[in-house]
Every structure is written in C-alpha cells, then in structure tokens.
C-alpha cells in the first residue's frame, strides 16, 4: 500500500524581551539558579501577573509578517496541572481566543514552492526547569526560565514529508530571527519544535491517528525523529496494528521515539479565563505602530535581489536565509555592482568556509567591503577564478584588502597579449605532437597546450586570452 505522511508542527519561540511576560525579572540565559525569579515568578501567595507590552508587540509583528489576522481582543487562560517547575500550578496561556489566527509561510522543497497554512499563534509563559542530575535522590528546581514569554506557532497539517517539515521549520526560524522577535538560540531552547505525525493510505481523506513528538531542538533531530516515526507507524499499520494517540520523545542516541504518555493518561487542563488578567485589547494604532517598524521580509527581499541585482531565484533564497547574510550581501553589492558574481562568492566560497569552520557570519573577519574588493578584481579581469580563490584564502587569514594581496603576491593576471603570444609560441614549439593532434581535429589537444601556457605563466595568464591566441596561431 502507498502511504501518505501528514505532519503539522507546533513551534515554541522564546520572545527576546528584556523582562518576563508577567513580571519584571530578567530573561537573560545562564544566570545562577533562581537568581532571576521574583515573587511573581515563584508564585508567592498574593502576587499577580502584569502583561509585558513588548511580548504583545512581538506577537503582532509575527502576525503581520505571516499575513495573519490579529485578534483585537484575545484572552489569557489558565492551563491547570501540577508539576514542580510550574510554580502556580497553572500555566498562563491563550486557549479559545489567541492573539494571532491564520497566516501562511512559503517553503521551498527541491524546485517547488509550497504554502504552509498557519492555524494560530498564541502568547504564553514558559515553565522553569527540573534538574535531576545534580542532586542525589532529589530534584532541583530552577525558576529562572519560569515566565519567559513564548509565542507558540501552530501550523495546519500541511506537510507531507520530513523534508517539508524541516523546510517549514527553517523558514519559520529565518522569519522569527529576521524579525528580531527570537534570538534563535536552539541550544538554549529559544526555538523548540513539537511534530504531530500521522500516516494514512494515499487517497484517504480522513487523517490517521497522530503521535506528537515533543521538544525537538535541532533541525537534524526533527528530520531524524519524523523519519523514524513515519517508518514506525507504517510498519505497525502494515503488520495489522493500530496507532494509539500518544505523546512521544525522541532519543537522539538511539534515533528512536518512545512513548511518554498516551491519551488515557492525558491531563484535563481545566482551561478557564484567567481572572487576574483582563482581555488583551489591541487597537488599530497598536498594529500600525508595529507595522511601521516591520523590516523588509525575507521573501520580498529575495524578489528584490533577483530583480535589482540579477541574482538567480535560488541564490536570492540563500542570501535571505538570515538578515545578517542579506545585509552582508547588500553592503558588498553597493561597493561592487556585480550581483551574480558576488552571490556566487557569498553562497559558495564564503558559506563553505563558514560552514567548515563552524563560524557565524558575525564572527568572521572577512568584511563585505573586502569581499567586494576581491570580486571587483575578478570582474575587471585582474584575477582569474583560480587566483581569486588564492586571494580569498589570503583575505580570510589576514586583514589586508584584495589589492594589497595581489600586489604583495604578484598575482595580477597577465593580459598583455605580447607576453602571452611569446608563451604561446614557446608552447607550440615545444609540443609538436599536440599541435598535430589539434590540427587533425582533436579539440582536446588545445586544452593541453593552454595548460602548458598557464603553467609557464604561473597561472597568471588570462585563460580566455590564452585560448584565443592559441587558436589564432594554429589556424
């Protein structure tokens, strides 16, 4: 039987506000346990929550960026359950009326563009952390994270493969970091993904029973976990089994998912509107104020790059993976208006180098201006692409600019036809066999001769010119 995979994602993005969603405590990561937990965060008797305006603005910002509906009135509800790192015994979240409804995000998988619809995005507070390792026979509670603002972004079950799910998660990641609403630090839990996965016979309208994989904090784990889960469900169904609705965890060491709880022991969260918080009312003026601060979005910027700088759609997509990269490209192209060539270097050599050294663009010493200096010398024929790579390496390791390196290392391409003619003549004289072959119609022989000329010039001869002069001489 052919199976169809159905995936929807719930993504918890930590909003990068200075203070918590309902208290004035700092949200900075990594402080000593419980040093950023105020009376409100540890839920002392008598304390009350007060909404952080910045968190609301970031949620509005997201809603506008995905073309969603911003609810003018939304309601905070209490989600009741007991857990030691949940100090109030309930989480303040949004249930029936979230701040953002609908919206969509485009993803690219292979050559196709696909639109993933969003269900909703709602504001809520994060819980604290239970520390099981450090205390023998006991559990430590760190409430520094308790009350950190989250925007939970829920997609429709629109994805049909792990690759699509990863593409969606990456597109969402790009967007939320681009908007500056989330720092994107996945190791610190700023962007956590829950994946709802089900399979059904191809052509069946009704959805299969889903299992939810909780708390995936890397794109690699997301892909591995979904692929494992898909295969597990298909194997079960093909063996005549039935999928039970469950919440599962992914173990990166074994590469498997295991059941955390089934539907039977699911909580009854007893949601009800939080009487401590009035409904959240958003005015047109609030929305307009956020709209005015909205940056150019990645999709729009990609289109502009293609139109303005002649960059391919594919390259434009890569250049707008992050705001930092896009800004780098724009800074370089302003100095050297060779969009296509620049894009090749940014997406090719620069990206490869950063990736190899596992370095962020911000931590790289090769400025946009210095890269532009290099590309300008390629464009004007000073450097062959081979020499250009050599100059790139030198740029990476020093703080000189391209011209200084070319000067220092004598790497200037020789385009003086007199000098090249001399080398060509020498090559023809020294390789009668190749000359013979070329004249007999063997085109490849010309390359061998050109190679000899290049070698003799120590790589500095202009390769196009070498080819031209060889042909002239041999005809």
């Amino acid at each position, binding site marked *: 039987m052919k199976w169809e995979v159905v995936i929807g994602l719930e993504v918890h993005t930590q909003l990068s506000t200075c203070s918590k969603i309902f208290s004035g405590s700092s949200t900075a990561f990594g402080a000593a346990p419980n040093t950023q937990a105020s*009376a409100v965060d*540890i*839920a*002392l*008797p*008598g*304390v*009350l*929550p*007060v*909404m952080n305006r910045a968190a609301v603005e970031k949620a509005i910002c997201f809603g506008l960026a995905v073309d969603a509906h911003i609810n003018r009135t939304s309601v905070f509800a*209490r989600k*009741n359950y*007991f857990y*030691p790192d949940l*100090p*109030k*015994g*309930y989480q303040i979240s949004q249930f029936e009326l979230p701040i953002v409804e609908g919206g969509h995000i485009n993803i690219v998988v292979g050559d196709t563009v696909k639109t993933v619809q969003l269900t909703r995005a709602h504001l809520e507070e994060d819980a604290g952390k239970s520390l099981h390792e450090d205390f023998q026979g006991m559990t430590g*509670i760190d409430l520094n994270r308790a009350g950190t603002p989250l925007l939970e972004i829920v997609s429709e079950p629109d994805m049909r493969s792990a690759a699509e799910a990863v593409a969606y998660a990456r597109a969402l990641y790009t967007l939320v970091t681009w908007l500056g609403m989330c720092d994107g630090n996945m190791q610190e839990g700023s962007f956590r993904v829950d994946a709802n996965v089900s399979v059904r016979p191809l052509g069946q309208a009704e959805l299969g029973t889903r299992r939810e994989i909780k708390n995936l904090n890397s794109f690699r784990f997301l892909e591995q976990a979904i692929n494992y889960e898909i295969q597990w469900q298909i194997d079960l169904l093909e063996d005549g089994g039935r999928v039970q609705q469950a919440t599962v965890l992914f173990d990166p060491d074994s590469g498997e998912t295991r059941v955390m709880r089934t539907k039977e022991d699911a909580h*009854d969260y*007893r*949601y*009800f509107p939080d*009487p*401590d*918080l*009035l409904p959240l009312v958003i005015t047109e003026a609030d929305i307009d104020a956020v709209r005015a601060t909205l940056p150019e979005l990645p999709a729009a910027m990609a289109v502009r790059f293609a139109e303005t700088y002649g960059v391919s759609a594919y390259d434009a997509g890569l250049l707008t993976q992050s705001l930092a990269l896009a800004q780098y490209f724009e800074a370089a192209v302003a100095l050297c208006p060779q969009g296509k060539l620049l894009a090749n270097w940014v997406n090719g050599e620069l990206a490869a180098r950063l990736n190899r050294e596992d370095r962020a663009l911000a931590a790289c010493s090769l400025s946009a201006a210095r890269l532009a200096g290099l590309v300008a010398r390629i464009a004007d024929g000073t450097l062959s692409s081979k020499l250009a790579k050599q100059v790139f390496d030198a740029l990476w390791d020093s703080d000189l600019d391209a011209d200084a390196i070319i000067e220092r290392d004598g790497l200037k391409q020789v385009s003086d036809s007199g000098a090249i003619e001399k080398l060509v003549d020498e090559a023809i004289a020294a390789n009668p066999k190749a000359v013979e072959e070329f004249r007999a119609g063997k085109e490849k022989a010309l390359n061998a001769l050109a190679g000899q000329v290049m070698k003799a010039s120590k790589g500095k001869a202009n390769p196009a010119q070498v080819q031209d002069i060889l042909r002239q001489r041999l005809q």
Partner: protein
Amino acid sequence: MTYTLKQLSDALASRQVSSREITTAYLERIAALNPTLNAFITVDPDRALAEADAADMARAAGSAGALTGIPLAHKDVFVTEGMLTTCGSKILNNFVGPYDAHVVSQCRRAGLVLVGKTNMDEFAMGSSNENSAYGAVKNPWDLRAIPGGSSGGSAAAVAARLVPVATGTDTGGSIRQPASHCGITGIKPTYGKVSRYGMVAYASSLDQGGPMAQTAEDCALMLNVMAGFDGRDSTCLDHGDEDYTRDLNTPLKGVKIGLPKEFFTAGLDAEVAAILQAAIAQFRTLGAELVEVSLPKTELSIPAYYVIAPAEASSNLSRYDGVRYGHRAADYKDLNDMYERSRAEGFGAEVKRRILVGTYVLSHGYYDAYYLQAQKIRRLIAQDFEAAFTQCDFILGPVAPTAAFNLGEKTNDPVQMYLSDIYTLAVNLAGLPAMSLPAGFTQQGRPVGMQLIGRYFAEAQLLGAAHQFQQVTDWHTRAPVLTPLN
C-alpha cells in the same frame, strides 16, 4: 478605649496623647482579651511599639499624616514583610512573606502602626470563622456566638476595641457579614478600587479589600489610605485619587433608597426584619424617599457564586504544593504522594470541599454546564442591579437572614451555611460597592447590621448616607462588656 479613628487622629494631632501611649493601651487590651476571643493569629508588640515611636518622631518632625500613629490590624490574608501570613491555614503556618501587600504598604506609608494579624476562615472561605486552622473566633457580644466570617477576627477585634480599625476582604460578604454580626461598620468597595496585590487570592474576580471600623467616617478615612491605582494588579482601576470623606455631610433629603422585595421575604428572621424597618423609618425621617425595587435573580446568586468562587479557588490554591514554601508532609513516597499528603494535611475540610467542587465544574464535559452557565447568571445579576438603580440611588437590605448563630450550629451542614450568604453574594458577582452598618440588637443582645448597596464607584455617597444615619443613631457607639480571663 471606645475612641474612633477620628478621635484618635484629633488627639494625636493636638498632642494630647502619643502613639506609644495609644499603642501600649491597645496592646494591653489585646493581651487581656485575645485569649478569650482568639481574634488574632499574630501579635507583635515589639514591632508595634517601634512603629509607634517612629510615628511619634514623624509627628515631632512635622511629617505626620491624619492617621500616623494609629494602631491597626491586618486580616491575615494580606502579606506582610517579615511577619507571618497564614491565611488561616495550616498550609501557610510557616510563611513569612518577603514583601508587603499594596494595602499593607499604603497603611505603612500613612504611618499606621501594625499591631498584628487577625484570625479568619481558612483562605477566606467561610461565614462563621470556624474554618480557621487557628481555632474559631468568639463573638465579643456573646462568646457562644460566631463573629461571622471570613473577616471574623478583624470584626471581633474592632468590636472588642482591641484595635480602632482593621482591614478585611470580601469575596461573598466577608467584610459585611462579620461587621453586621459584631456591630461595627465595614465597606466592600467597587471591585478594582483596592489593589489585590499581596492579598492572598481566594476567588480573584470577586475578592476585594476594605476597612472595618466603628463608624462610616472611620471607614472613609481608611479607604483614603487603602484605595487607589496600583499597576501591579491588572484588575485595579485607575479612577484618580478621591476623598472618600467628601460626602459625609451631604444631607439625605430627596435621596431615593430602594428596598428589594426579594430581600424582605419569609426567609428573613422576624427580629432582623423589625430592626431593619426601624432603620428604614430613620432614613425616612432623614428625608430619604423609600421605593420598592426588584432583584429577581437574587436566589440564583448562591449557585452562581458557589460555582465561580470554587472554580477560581481550585486554581488559585494549586500553588500550595509543598514545593517552594508552606507546609510539606514529613514522609512521602514520590512526587504525587508529596503533593497529596502535603495538601491533605495542610488544607481544612471546607477548603478541600471547594477545591473539589471547583475542579469538578471546570473539568472537561462540565465546564459549559456549570462554569459558563454561572458566568451568564453573573451577567444577569449585574443587569438586575442596573435596572434597580434606574429607580433609586441606594439599595437597603439585610446583611444576613439572622443575627449571629451559635458556634457549632451549622458546621455539619455546609449548604445551610452557604444559604446564609443570600443577601451578600450578588454584590460581589456584580462588582458593586456595599457596606454594613449597625442597625440594632436582638433581644438576646446580638448585633444586627443593615446593608447599603451603591452604584459603581459610589463609595463616598454610601459612606455619606451611613454617616448621616450614624449622626442620629447610637448603635455604632455601643461596645460589648468583656472581662479578661484570669
């Protein structure tokens, strides 16, 4: 010791007496009579005298306010920095707060001297003060009687003149009913007038703090200190500063007082009804016009309240889990066992009952039938009042169907206990201001109060009407005769 806040304020201002002298006198009275009444859970004489000295110094320095140096007690529901706050519960028997409730800091700023914390029904759940983990409070007028609840400790303390003024909270009548049973004056302001920050939550959408004192004038002076905007409570109203004494001398001529026919039925004790009729006659003499009004949904306020309040309470009390503070069971097998034992040991029967009811009405499949339905009734009740207030300026009625009943009389019948809240609950559901003031005594000598309900934000007018009444009556001046235990 029957001095009112106003008299003490004047005496301090004219330097006839010092705060240390006043405070010492009240502390002595507390030491003598509290063993009989059990009105206080905590008394801190050292701290009180230190604050009194500070008040005297402030006065000497010319920086004293109207209430600087006057002793005060807070209901043990208000968190006080460095002083035990139990909320009448065993589960908080070791909780010393690291911060002051808004009301507490307002009183401190005004220079009032905190002598201690008063007894109350556990988590403010109760109408008789018998639900306190620290023992029942006795009614100073009759030691066999309940003082009312849940602010029974505050009411008894003021009635017995252990303090000139105390704070209370009112979720379903918890200021008005004990005020009535103890023969003092108390006001529950419009919901949102007094910040709930630091007031341990019972039912957040209903809880409201207010003053309890001998007279309406004293309540007005205290409300000037307690009320006002506080950004830490999102439900607190930014209504500007107002002087709640401004209408004290406004005559009642032409004022229309509504008498809801549903309040004066067979359910009302005949003696209480007679006392109210006399009070109504008094208001007529003062120039007020009496009109009959109707509050048809009055009876529904009991089921609506006993769904909404427990629902909110079940969630509000989840934080008492033994993890971070408060009582934790000594032995437990695992996490769930720790929760179960800590809460089973820490909470009393009535609190457990309301947590169970609240959990039930919020659970999947019952939410619509109970919680949502109750919210609809709540809106209808508010509309009842809106309609009534098109015909009158105030509503006058009983506070409770009877005078204070005897200790132990209703402890085995919670439903009977709930039914005695019939006249007070609707006010909280609607969020209106209302007060209780002394109207007379039963033949047995137990006080009976009457209730005045006003439009939203009509505290000053309510206090004015009560003050006018107190100018021509002396019920509020009477004090019980108490002899210290030996």
